[in-house]
């Protein structure tokens, strides 16, 4: 039998071929490139599933395909391309190719049926985007990962700016590109530092950099450090440098500003970016080289804290947004914050779990939003919607499933993964104040998430239509409903792959499939198992209420309670016929339901105050964070203006400056060298 490993490059190459075909085939293609893209991604999906199955049968492997260059000199280094197929990458391959295929199908409805022009360029971009993300996933070394990471960024630039004739998209594309690129430069320096330190950038094997780092910390190996720096300090610095790229791509505070702007791109692209490709790349990278990160407690704590903070910070901003996609954008930032929190607090499996469930329900929500946007003739303002529930039932029910998952309501997928993250953060955080702080922020974000999610759901689908568009929505076809249904099912059931709480509470062994999967239960690559990571991680577990089971139950109860609370608040405020006139309506009711009046009054007060907090978070975001980003660029541009004035255009001045420069050099080096 042919082994799946021989076909791994094809997983990457198929979408790449569709990119080439779309690029050169232009308008001669059926559906202008869509079918090619669907076929390619379907092929990738099939191969990925095959790979998944063969990994399940113990066929994890690492293979080098191509060597770019080998260096001579004191420290030989090799730049190679290869594939690392282990449980983690096999799982991710399936997620990426599945979401990519669904997005391609959905695009038939969103782009082709809407008569967008220039579609071959769109499908070419999607193909390249998918290919580069898949290439990133299989990368077996940091340099290859970096190159595909960059390619992902470039594709996002091309796709976000797809509607380049409008004013918004080009600048949003540029912002996305430059902000993530800003983080990537730290990443680049980090890659170079890894090479210099270890002489290799491989992820797996005894000669890989996580393994060497571990050995170096145990004193079993020596590595280069700049200026004789303490090994652990240097590892922390390197880890943080690479984290720069992660923060940029995964839109963590403070480099998250590009992501809401990136909503200017076509909605299917947003789905792809948020669920499976670009943003997921950052978190995946941390998971990929987790063996390195767990060695540095400082880095871990920073990751956890940034994650927790981002989760809360972005969630509060989601509360005040008017546009459907804006809400989803902030929810993405927030959810990736959770994943970072999980990674930082030692919850490797929890992070991958949430990455998986989030990929499905966020793709679902974006595609659902796309469906709504089609129906609303590309109006995205939620205050113009309302009452779409009956007119588009498929969209409504799937969207609802996604929202329940996002809000973390039992038993939808998001509940299980988010609960496990919070649980990990809690048990590891009881000794670590920083982790505990991150946990608290993550917990606080739960009701906020539920609140804004259901505010969105209620405003969009419930109540009375608030505009003529909403009264007569544009119908959507199978190519929209199909992907929605697939994802809707997944959003409901994905939680089943990792029933850890159930296992712990009821004592049923063997239903925590994801744990077993990532723990090389069915075979994997030595040194890349969650078990190994758990041994390395710097935390100890503490339990509340005298035991594991009670801690699990208490944690789940608290987070579910908070989520339900948020949901209830949203219900009360927005699940009404006409939420905008909420307060006026109260006057008629007060004689009849006096007590309810107080209750409503209280709710209004809560709403106003949440609004104030969220609003100030939003202001902070727009003013300070954006301001700093803009500030850096304006300072650069200002200094650029100053620096170029040196070139006065008068050749005598040049001669003078040249002489002065030379004289200065002569004097300085004469003094240093003692020539006089």
């Amino acid at each position, binding site marked *: 039998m042919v082994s799946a490993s021989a076909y791994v490059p094809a997983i990457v190459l198929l979408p790449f071929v569709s990119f080439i075909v779309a690029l050169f085939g232009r308008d001669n293609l059926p559906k202008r490139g869509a079918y090619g893209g669907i076929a390619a991604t379907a092929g990738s999906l099939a191969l990925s599933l095959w790979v998944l199955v063969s990994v399940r049968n113990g066929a994890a492997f690492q293979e080098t395909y191509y060597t770019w260059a080998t260096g001579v000199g004191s420290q030989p280094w090799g730049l190679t391309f290869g594939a690392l197929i282990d449980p983690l990458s096999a799982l991710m391959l399936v997620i990426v190719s599945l979401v990519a295929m669904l997005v391609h199908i959905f695009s038939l409805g969103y782009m082709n049926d809407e008569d967008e022009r220039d579609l071959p360029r769109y499908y070419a971009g999607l193909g390249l985007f998918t290919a580069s993300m898949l290439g990133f996933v299989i990368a077996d070394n940091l340099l290859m990962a970096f190159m595909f990471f960059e390619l992902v960024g470039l594709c996002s630039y091309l796709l976000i700016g797809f509607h380049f004739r409008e004013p918004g998209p080009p600048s949003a594309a540029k912002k996305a590109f430059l902000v993530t690129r800003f983080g990537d430069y730290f990443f680049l320096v980090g890659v170079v530092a890894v090479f210099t330190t270890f002489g290799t950038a491989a992820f797996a094997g005894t000669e890989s950099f996580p393994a060497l780092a571990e050995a170096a910390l145990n004193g079993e190996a020596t590595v280069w450090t700049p200026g004789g720096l303490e090994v652990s300090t240097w590892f922390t610095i390197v880890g943080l440098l690479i984290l720069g790229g992660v923060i940029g791509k995964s839109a963590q505070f403070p480099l998250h500003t590009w992501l809401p702007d990136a909503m200017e791109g076509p909605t299917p692209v947003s789905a792809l970016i948020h669920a499976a490709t670009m943003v997921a790349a950052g978190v995946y990278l941390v998971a990929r080289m987790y063996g390195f990160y767990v060695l540095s407690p400082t880095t871990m704590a920073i990751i956890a804290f940034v994650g927790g903070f981002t989760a809360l910070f972005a969630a509060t901003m989601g509360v005040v947004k008017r546009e459907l996609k804006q809400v989803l954008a902030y929810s993405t930032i927030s959810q990736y914050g959770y994943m970072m929190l999980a990674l930082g607090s030692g919850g490797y499996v929890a992070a991958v779990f949430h990455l998986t469930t989030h990929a499905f329900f966020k793709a679902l929500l974006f595609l659902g939003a796309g469906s709504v946007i089609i129906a609303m003739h590309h109006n995205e303002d939620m205050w113009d919607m309302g009452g779409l529930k009956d007119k588009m039932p498929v969209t409504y029910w799937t969207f609802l499933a996604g929202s329940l998952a996002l809000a973390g309501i039992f038993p939808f997928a998001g509940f299980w993964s988010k609960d496990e993250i919070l649980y990990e953060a809690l048990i590891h955080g009881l000794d670590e104040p920083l982790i505990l702080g991150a946990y608290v922020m993550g917990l606080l974000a739960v009701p906020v998430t539920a609140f804004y999610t259901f505010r969105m759901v209620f405003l969009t689908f419930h109540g009375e239509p608030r505009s003529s568009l909403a009264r007569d929505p544009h119908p959507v076809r199978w190519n929209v409903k199909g992907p929605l249904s697939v994802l809707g099912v997944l959003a409901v059931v994905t939680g089943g792959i990792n029933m850890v709480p159930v296992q712990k509470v009821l004592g049923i062994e063997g239903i925590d499939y994801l744990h077993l999967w990532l723990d090389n239960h069915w075979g994997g690559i030595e040194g890349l198992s969650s078990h190994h990571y758990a041994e390395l991680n710097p935390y100890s577990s503490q339990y509340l209420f005298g035991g594991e089971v009670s801690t699990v139950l208490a944690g789940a109860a608290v987070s579910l309670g908070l989520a339900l609370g948020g949901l209830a608040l949203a219900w009360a405020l927005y699940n009404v016929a006409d939420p905008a006139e909420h307060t006026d309506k109260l006057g008629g009711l007060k004689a009849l339901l006096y007590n309810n009046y107080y209750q409503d009054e209280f709710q209004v007060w809560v709403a106003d105050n949440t609004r104030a907090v969220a609003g100030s978070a939003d202001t902070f975001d727009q003013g300070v964070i954006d301001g700093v980003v803009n500030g850096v660029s304006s300072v650069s541009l200002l200094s650029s203006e100053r620096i170029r004035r040196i070139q006065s255009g*008068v050749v005598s001045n040049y001669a003078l400056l040249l002489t002065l420069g030379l004289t200065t050099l002569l004097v300085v080096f004469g003094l240093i060298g003692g020539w006089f």
Partner: protein
Amino acid sequence: MVPPEYYLVLSAAIFCIGLFGILTRRNALYFLMSAELMLNAAVINLVAFSFQWGNLTGQTFALFVIALAAAEVAVGIGIVLVLYRNFGEIDVLNADSMRW
């Protein structure tokens, strides 16, 4: 015999005079002459130290420097000519349309 340091001082002085000319003159031709002066400072060094070290390398190279100086003048005059044709004068300060 004159000590070699004196030649160094002499050549440095000539070099600085040439440099001074370049910094103060606006006329392209003077600019050119000043640069030649600087080259001649190098030639003085080469010849003097060729004598000092007892090998002919410096003297031979001095001939090359002189030759190249002449070639440089040839090209320079050509450029000054087209400068005059385009700008109507040979003031180097006037050619400042490109800057920043």
